[in-house]
C-alpha cells in the first residue's frame, strides 16, 4: 500500500462528531467530502500548505510549511517524511527539519538541495508554489540535541549537512542557550553557503556563538588535524557532525583515537551497508504473496535479492527510514545490515531495504 501521512492531532470532539455521522457517507468518510473544501482538513493524514519558498543558494531552497493541524513537535535534528505529487505520482522523501520546534507561528521548514536527476528536490527548489499542499509523514531520527542541553556544543557541518544542525542552532538560539558554541561549517564557495544570512544574524546576536566558515574551494576540506587549532577544547565538547560520508568517517575515527566517542553525535543519511559490522552469511527468502524465491548473499538486503529474482516489491528510501518496504516476517530471522544485529520473530514487520536474511526466511510480500 502506498504511504500515508501521519495521523494528525485532531481535537477529540471533532473526531467524535465526524465519527458519529460516518454512516451517512459510507463507504466514504466525512473527510472525503470535507477535503473538497479544504484538503488540510483531512483527519486521516496530516497535510500542510506551503507558505513561502526562500532560495538559500542557487540550488537549495527553504520551504516553509503550515501544518493543517497542530504540529506534533520534533526534536531539533530530526527529519520528516514528506509526500508530494510530481507529474501525477505521489513521492515520499525524508528531509531534515530546519525549523526549531518552538516556532510561535506553528510552521515548519525543510531545506532541500537540488539533486539534478531527482524527482522531489527539483519540485521543491524550482516547481513548488505557495499554496501547494504536501503530505506530512512521521518524524524520525536519533541525531538530536541531548536532554539536558549541552553547555558547550561543537557543530561540524559541510554542504547541505547543515540542515539538521540549523534546527539545533535555531532551537538553542530561541532558548538563549548559545553561551559557548563553536560551529565549523564548510561550503564550496561563498555562494554555496546555505543559511548564510540566518547564521550571520545569530553570530551577530550571540557573543557565545562562534562561526568558522570554511570555503573548501579555496581552503580545502577540513582535516582532523585542524581541530586542535580551530577548537582547542574539542575533546571536552558534545560534538554534532553532519556532512558527506568521507568527512564523517575521518572525524569519527579521530574521535575514536583521540577524543571521547561518547560525546560524538553524528548523522549518516546513507547507512553504511557492508561496513565493519557483521554481515552474516545471507540466506534464502520466500516471498509468500508472489511466490518468488530469492537467494541473498552475505550483506545483500532482502529487497535487492528479491528484485534480482524478479519480484515486484514496495520500496521507498532504500536506507531504512521510510518504512515503505516493510513486510511481515513469517519465518526465520534477519540481520540489520546497519548494526549487524540479528533479530526477528514471527509477525514482526521488517524493513527489507536494510535487513538481510539470516538463513532461510519467509516474508509476506
Amino acid at each position, binding site marked *: 500500500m502506498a504511504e500515508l501521512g501521519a495521523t494528525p492531532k485532531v481535537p477529540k470532539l471533532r473526531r467524535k462528531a465526524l465519527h458519529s455521522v460516518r454512516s451517512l457517507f*459510507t463507504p466514504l468518510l466525512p473527510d472525503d467530502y470535507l477535503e473538497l473544501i479544504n484538503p488540510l482538513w483531512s483527519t486521516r493524514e496530516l497535510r500542510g500548505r506551503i507558505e513561502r519558498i526562500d532560495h538559500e543558494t542557487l540550488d537549495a531552497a527553504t520551504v516553509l510549511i503550515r501544518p493543517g493541524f497542530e504540529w506534533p513537535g520534533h526534536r531539533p535534528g530530526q527529519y520528516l517524511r514528506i509526500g508530494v505529487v510530481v507529474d501525477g*505520482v505521489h513521492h515520499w522523501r525524508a528531509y531534515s527539519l530546519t525549523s526549531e520546534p518552538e516556532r510561535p507561528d506553528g510552521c515548519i521548514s525543510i531545506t532541500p538541495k537540488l539533486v539534478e536527476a531527482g524527482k522531489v528536490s527539483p519540485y521543491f527548489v524550482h516547481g513548488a508554489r505557495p499554496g501547494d499542499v504536501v503530505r506530512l509523514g512521521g518524524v524520525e531520527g536519533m541525531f538530536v540535541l541531548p536532554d539536558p542541553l549541552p553547555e558547550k556544543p561543537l557543530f561540524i557541518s559541510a554542504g547541505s549537512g547543515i540542515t539538521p544542525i540549523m534546527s539545533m542552532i535555531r532551537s538553542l538560539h530561541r532558548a538563549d542557550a548559545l553561551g559557548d558554541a563553536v560551529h565549523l561549517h564548510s561550503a564550496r564557495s561563498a555562494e554555496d553557503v546555505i543559511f548564510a544570512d540566518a547564521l550571520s544574524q545569530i553570530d551577530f546576536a550571540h557573543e557565545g556563538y562562534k562561526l568558522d566558515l570554511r570555503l573548501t574551494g579555496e581552503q580545502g576540506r577540513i582535516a582532523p588535524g585542524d581541530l586542535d587549532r580551530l577548537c582547542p577544547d574539542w575533546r571536552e565538547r558534545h560534538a554534532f557532525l553532519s556532512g558527506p560520508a568521507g568527512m564523517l568517517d575521518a572525524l569519527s575515527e579521530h574521535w575514536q583515537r583521540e577524543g571521547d566517542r561518547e560525546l560524538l553525535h553524528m548523522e549518516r543519511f546513507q547507512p553504511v551497508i557492508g561496513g565493519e559490522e557483521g554481515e552474516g552469511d545471507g540466506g534464502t527468502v520466500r516471498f509468500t504473496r508472489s511466490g518468488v524465491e530469492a537467494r541473498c548473499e552475505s550483506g545483500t538486503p532482502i529487497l535487492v535479492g528479491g528484485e534480482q529474482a524478479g519480484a515486484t516489491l514496495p520500496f521507498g528510501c532504500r536506507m531504512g527510514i521510510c518504512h515503505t518496504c516493510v513486510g511481515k516476517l513469517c519465518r526465520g530471522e534477519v540481520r540489520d545490515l546497519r548494526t549487524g544485529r540479528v533479530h526477528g520473530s514471527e509477525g514482526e514487520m521488517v524493513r527489507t531495504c536494510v535487513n538481510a536474511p539470516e538463513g532461510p526466511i519467509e516474508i509476506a510480500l
Partner: protein
Amino acid sequence: MNAMTTTAEPVSPLAHLSAEQLDELAREFDAIRDRVAADLGERDRRYIESMIAMQRRLAVGGRMALLFARHRPAQAAGATALSMAKILENMEIGHNVLHGQWDWMNDPRINSSTWDWDTASTAEAWKHSHNYVHHTFTNILGKDKDLGYEIMRIDPQQKWHPVYLLQPLYNLLLMAFFEWGVAVHDLDFEAIRSGRKSKAQIKRELAGIRDKAKSQIIKDYLAWPLLSALATAALDGALEARRPGRRRGRAGRIVRRALSGGGASFRSAAAANASANIVRNIWAYAIIFCGHFPDQTYTFTQEEVEDESPGGWYVRQLAGAANIEGSPLFHVASGNLGYQVEHHLFPDLPSTRYAEIAPQVKQVCERYGLPYNSGPFSQQLGMVQRTILRLAFPGGSQRPKPGPYRGEDHPVL
C-alpha cells in the same frame, strides 16, 4: 446488416494466424501498453481527481435537494443528481480504480488496495471474481463465470435446462437489482458446490455482503430519509408557527404539521434513493451486458484455449468483447466500458486512455485480419435481449459474426 460471412459455427478468429504472427501481434499490443504507461502523468491524475470531485459534488447536491424530497421538483432533481453520482461512482471511478488503473499514482486513497465502493459487492470479492476470473478466462465456456452469470443461457453452446424458460423474467429482476446479483455471483456457486471454497471463506464472504447491505440500507433508507424528515419537519413546523390564528391548540397544530411533513419527506427521500440505486443498477446492467453478449462476440471452448500464447490471449480478449459507440459523455457515464475491447486488452490502463488507443487497436485488427466488434448502444442492447429471449428455449445457433475489421470505410454491420 450486409456483407457478413454467415456460418453456423464461426471459425475461430485466430485460426488464420501462425504462432509467429501471434507473437508479433503480442509484441504490438505490448508496445501500445508500454507507450501509454510511459506517458501517464499529471493530466491523467487531474482527470480522475476531478471526476471524483464531481461525483462527490453531485452526491452532496442530490442529498441536499432530497432534504426537501416532499416537494416534487426537489425530489426529481435530487434523485437525478444522486443517480448520476452513483453511476459515476460505480463505473468510471469504482470499477476502474479497483482494476488498479490508478495505482501508478502511488496515491494511498485512489488505489485498488484501499478503495471501497457504493455497491453490494465487497471490493475483495469483486477483485477476485472480476479482475481475476473474468478478465483472465474471458469468454471461455465453463471457466468465465460472467458468461450468463451461472443463471442465464446466453450462448447456444451452453446446455439448455427448463429453468432457462424463466430467464426472460429473472433477466428483468437482475436488471433492477443488478448490484445484488453481482454480489451473490461473486460467491461463485460452482466453487462452493465443488467444495473448492472453505466454509470459513464462504462465511467471511457472506459477512462481507451482509455488512455492505447493512451500510447501504442504513444510509439510503434510514439515515438520509431521517435527515430529510427532520429538515422538512423543522421547516413545516416553523411555517405553521408563523401562521396567524388562534393561540389555542397552536402547539398541537405545529406538531401535527411537522409530523406529517416529516413523514412524507422520509418516504419521498427513501423512494428517491431507491430509484437512484435502481437507475444505477439498470445502467450498469445494460453497459456490462453489452460488453460480451452482443451477436458479434466470440466464445471459446476450453480445448480451443489450451496452450494459449500471449498473442492468443490478446485475440481472445478482443474477439470476446464488443464496443458501444457513443458520445464522450456516454463514455464517461459508462466508465469508458464502451471501449470494452480496449479495456479487455489492457484492463489496468487508465480508462481515459482507451479512446486514444482505439485507432491503434483498430489498425492492428485490420492488419491481422481480426474482428473489432462495435455497434451503437440500442443495437447492442437489442441483440443481447433477443439472445436472452431466444436461448430461454432449447436450441439456437451461433449468430453470424462480422468477420475481420476492414477499416472505417467498410462498416462491419
